[in-house]
């Protein structure tokens, strides 16, 4: 026990160390390409905190990332390599929009209805590849990549031919009825009540995974599907339900974008957030409780990068490179592993005391 806590602390120290090292490397790159590296990097590191609306962007982004991250974390834990989040996000944004545009009712009701509708469509859109995998053993990478492309076309189709008002000079819908907008809770930002869903979602997913029989079935299916089946778990059901439930969270992210951020349905609502979700989830080692942390971290990275790119002479392309480098290093466990080796050797020494073998030191 004590041993494992020690390990935990070490892990934490390692993470912090790695991040610092990664940031340092990022700075070194900046040194080479910027005339004003200090200023540029300050913008990167502190930018998101310097103005309310920047702070807002960071949080808004992190909300989206958290929700998508949770979606990914669910499927990955069941060892399903489903990339469906992107498409589900689009449909979530679309459907919440349809409700927001075509219905009229008291605020609370309206928002809830829109959110539920989004969640439902996300669920169903996840069900498709889920059933294909479970009953036809159709590879989920293929089906989800394709379904994403399809979802986006459906989105564009409806947006272009149904939602776009004639007077609009661009392919966007009207603004939703105010009753269907998420209330903004921090002035001068677009931080909305969605932040509460995000927080709630984290605990929901955690509970689902670790505190419900379904979650147990999900994790066992991920760990060894043969064992799960032998033990009486209906693994097919686990597979399609997991992929469907994951869809709910991706769709919520979509709803957040259209009801909270844009307040209407727009083209290209997501430029690959599905993949950002994978980054967030994997950084958190698919642990739901860590996802908001990594989402905030990654969100900060992106917001900061954006600000550096806008306010300094570092071009956005270069910022992308720096971002990538940081991701690479942060995930590299072996990086800084020499620390670990040090620790090993120290523990090796403790052997001398000749504790009863087999028991834990």
């Amino acid at each position, binding site marked *: 026990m004590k041993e494992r806590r020690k390990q935990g602390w070490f892990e934490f120290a390692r993470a912090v160390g790695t991040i610092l090292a990664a940031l340092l490397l990022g700075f070194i790159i900046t040194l080479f390409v910027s005339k004003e590296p200090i200023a540029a990097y300050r913008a990167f590191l502190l930018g998101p905190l310097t103005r309310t609306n*920047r702070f807002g962007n960071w949080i808004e982004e992190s909300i989206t990332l958290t929700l998508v991250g949770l979606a990914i974390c669910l499927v990955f834990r069941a060892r399903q390599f489903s990339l469906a989040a992107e498409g589900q996000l689009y449909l979530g944004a679309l459907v919440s929009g349809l409700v927001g545009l075509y219905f009229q009712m008291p605020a609370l009701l309206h928002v809830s209805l829109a959110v539920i509708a989004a969640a439902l469509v996300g669920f169903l859109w996840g069900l498709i590849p889920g059933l294909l995998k479970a009953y036809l053993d159709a590879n989920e990478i293929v089906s989800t990549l394709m379904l994403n492309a399809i979802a986006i076309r459906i989105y564009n189709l409806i947006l272009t031919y149904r939602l776009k008002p004639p007077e609009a*000079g661009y*392919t966007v819908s009207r603004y939703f009825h105010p009753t269907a907008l998420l209330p903004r809770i921090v002035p001068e930002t677009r931080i909305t009540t969605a932040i509460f869903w995000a927080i709630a979602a984290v605990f929901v997913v955690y509970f689902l995974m670790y505190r419900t029989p379904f979650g147990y079935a999900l994790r066992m299916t991920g760990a060894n599907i043969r064992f799960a089946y032998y033990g009486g778990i209906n693994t097919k059901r686990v597979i399609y339900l997991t992929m469907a439930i994951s869809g709910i969270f991706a769709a919520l992210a979509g709803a957040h974008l259209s009801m909270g951020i844009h307040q209407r349905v727009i083209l290209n*609502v997501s430029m690959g957030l599905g993949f950002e979700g994978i980054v967030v989830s994997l950084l958190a080692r698919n642990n739901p409780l860590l996802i908001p942390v990594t989402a905030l971290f990654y969100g900060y990275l992106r917001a900061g990068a954006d600000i550096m*790119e806008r306010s300094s002479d570092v071009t*956005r392309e270069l910022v992308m490179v720096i971002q990538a480098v940081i991701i690479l290093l942060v995930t590299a466990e072996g990086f800084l592993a020499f620390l670990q080796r040090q620790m090993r050797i120290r523990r090796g020494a403790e052997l001398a005391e000749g504790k009863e073998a087999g028991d834990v030191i």
Partner: protein
Amino acid sequence: GAPKATPTPEKKALKVVLLINGVLGDKSFFDSAQRGIDRAVKELGIQAKTIEAGTDPARWEAALEDAAATEDYDILICGTWQMNDYLGKVAPKYPDKKFFIFDTSVDYSKGNLGNVYSVLYKQNEGSYLAGVYAAMMTQKPLPGMNDKKVIGVIGGMDIPVINDFIVGYKQGARDVDPETQVIVQYSGGWNDPAKGKEITLAMYEQGADIVFNVAGGTGMGIFEAAEEQNRYAIGVDSDQAIIVKDTDPQQAERILTSMLKNVDNSLFRALKLHLEGKLVYGQAEYLGIAEGGVGLAKNEYYEKYTPTDVKARVEQAEKDILEGKIKVDTAF
């Protein structure tokens, strides 16, 4: 990122920030705007900085607010319809600053936008000319032209501003010869030249021999197809034959003309007027053929390949539009 930043010349120069809600390198729209600013830097000695807000719409509003609040500028320039609501919100907060918005207009009825100058382009008129041109050329006995009355146009996405080009193009073609068939396709993206090339080849296969590019970077594939098949293409926004001229002369040969949407000129002109104190804020300005906002590129290739009757017909069309004899439809 701001590659452009000139050393401050003698007395305090006009400071301009160009905010691009996308990325540079589209070979047409935004690049053209950048060209205008560059020219102003050279010729008017202004100071300029460009901000690329990237392709993710979620970040544009923030980028604008940020720039307006934190940048050091006299005039802030942005473009496209997506930005005008945002600008409508931001501009009133900075009454002592000036704002341009191009290719769209803010909603002046709100009345608090006295510091904003909007400029729009009648791409439908320019495209009308392109349509007239294509419809006539397709019947000429040029090498690579067939006798079919079929022409093509490729749009990047099915969105109003693009459709505005296409509407005008079609109308122009029909006015020349009602039997002209116009093949319309959308590539569904701005950065897939391979797709652009494949679609163009398909159009050629279907009898078209001249294809109009309204698809940004994807359009570069159209020119490749034209070069490969010895067919023809029409460029857009900038004079695209000139862009490839030095590196790929054969390709330039296939780009008979380009429908110019002179964002560069319009911005340069506006900045010039501003410095002369002649620019009228608080209103939108429409630049059509008359104002040189749009038109066909009459470069060496145009001159080389265009038969006189076609030239005449085009000039006629220009005149008719100016005199309002021809009313060109719009997709807006």
